[in-house]
């Protein structure tokens, strides 16, 4: 209908126009699809860059929003990397199936040596190491930092310890427990402590920490959604005239939403990148103290930073949250502008 209508009208137009119209008709026949595709690509490119331009044009507002988001996201990824580090720490300990036997105070060094020899003969034991009272005290002095205080003690409060290393074949918990019970029964032993128990306890602490971090991350994710949603709502409010005009000249909701979705994307993306910088900076600050601490425990522990995949994940998740937050608000708000 519309086309034929234009053809009819052309003849009444000024003489120059029909010629132009003909040119257009022939050109359109060939490259209509390509033209439209290019136009669509241009629209996206334009929305991508103009939304970034708008963020740059109001730097104060943008920086405040992005700072809040970056802190929220870096908290989330900070908790994540903390748990990753704890997991690595307990992962290292997992192989230890040592049993420590704390001997009674009245047991002498010679007696302890004899006991060690007896234990060595046990079929499931690989080796036994004696830590005498003096050795234990010296070790404690060096690493605990209580040197001066210990010097003030009149007697050595530390017991003799036999570190029993079971054979590697003995890996199941039950076997270890039976072994522990045997040791407990000998009169010289005050109490027998399985290192594995400590590992298990630590592991359940890490499991709790991990769950806590996951819950916290979900909360922070929701907070990020709300912050971005609110930012887009304000943006939509300031650009209300533009939205109404675009609607009047026949814009679809997809067209109107596009620049706002890109704004959400940019906010999420930039916040994600900023959060990575914040986390990495904090980790750099923590690295030396952690390594010193690890040294005190004779462990060569190195702090784990966010890996490449994790960094990528962080930025992708932030960007997706940005798009989702804006999208949710746009769906609600554009229905309201309908009444205009």
């Amino acid at each position: 209908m519309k086309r034929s209508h234009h053809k009819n009208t052309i003849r009444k137009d000024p003489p120059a126009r029909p010629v132009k119209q003909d040119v257009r008709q022939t050109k359109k026949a060939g490259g209509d699809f390509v033209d439209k595709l290019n136009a669509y690509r241009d629209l996206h490119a334009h929305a991508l860059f103009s939304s970034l331009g708008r963020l740059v044009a109001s730097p104060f507002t943008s920086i405040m929003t992005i700072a809040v988001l970056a802190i929220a996201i870096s908290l989330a990824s900070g908790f994540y990397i903390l748990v990753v580090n704890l997991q690595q720490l307990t992962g290292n300990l997992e192989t230890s199936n040592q049993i420590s036997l704390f001997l009674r105070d009245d047991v002498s060094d010679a007696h302890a040596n004899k006991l060690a020899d007896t234990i060595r003969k046990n079929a499931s034991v690989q080796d036994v190491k004696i830590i005498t009272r003096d050795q234990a005290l010296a070790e404690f002095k060096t690493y605990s930092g209580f040197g001066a205080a210990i010097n003030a003690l009149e007697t050595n409060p530390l017991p003799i310890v036999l570190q029993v290393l079971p054979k590697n074949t003995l890996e199941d918990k039950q076997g270890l427990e039976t072994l522990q019970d045997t040791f407990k029964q000998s009169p010289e032993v005050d109490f027998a402590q399985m290192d594995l128990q400590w590992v298990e306890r630590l592991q359940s602490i890490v499991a709790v920490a991990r769950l806590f971090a996951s819950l916290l991350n979900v909360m922070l994710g929701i907070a990020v959604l709300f912050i971005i949603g609110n930012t887009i709502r304000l943006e939509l409010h300031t650009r209300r005239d533009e939205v109404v005009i675009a609607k009047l000249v026949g814009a679809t909701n997809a067209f109107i939403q596009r620049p706002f979705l890109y704004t959400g994307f940019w906010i999420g993306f930039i916040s994600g990148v900023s959060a990575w910088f914040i986390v990495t900076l904090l980790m750099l600050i923590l690295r030396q103290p952690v390594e010193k601490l690890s040294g005190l425990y004779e462990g060569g522990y190195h702090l784990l930073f966010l890996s490449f995949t994790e960094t990528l994940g962080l930025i992708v998740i932030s960007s997706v949250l940005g798009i989702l937050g804006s999208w949710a608000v746009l769906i609600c708000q554009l229905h309201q502008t309908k009444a205009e």
Partner: protein
Amino acid sequence: MIKFVNVSKRYPETGDVLRNVSFHLQRGEIAFLTGHSGAGKSTLLRLIAVMERCSRGQILLDSEDVGLAKENQLPYIRRKMGFIYQDYKLLTDRTVFDNVALPLVIAGYGHHEISRRVRAALDKVSLTGKEKKYPLALSGGEQQRVGIARAVVNKPPIIIADEPTGNLDPELSAEIMFLFGQFQQVGVTVLIASHDISLITQLNRRVLKLDHGQMVSS
């Protein structure tokens, strides 16, 4: 082209704003819509722009029943119409070119086609050479002509103007009316809401008169 059949519009707060309004504008017809303030002119225009739907009756635009159109089809119906407003409704942070190009960008035209059509539309309203200016740097008459260029750039079969000469002096008003006459001659249906009785009588065109929501003459 525009056909109202017993159209009523009721708002919960104010009751019936339009009651049993019927009229039919043929293709290539030009008409004025008049009536006192609150007679329902704006509501009628909003119904044509499908920014709202009528409570009763039937509205046909280009033989299409807009009451049956789904929400996502409304933008495509609006593209058949060019709207001109008393306050111009231009985007002040965009150039004249970008303002006029908006309907084409929305319709997904390519670069060259947009450029060609925008220049043709600006030429039509005698604004050639002002493409790179911003609306606020132009006079009222020029801004209104930018609005007109935007309304016709997509070559819509219908043009709706809401008080287009409200802010203009008689000389500029006559110029704008002359432009509308030209569009009508090429087959465009033009509906102009106006208070300007002297202008209306002078032009001697069809007049649709609303009084308290009812069409008293058409």
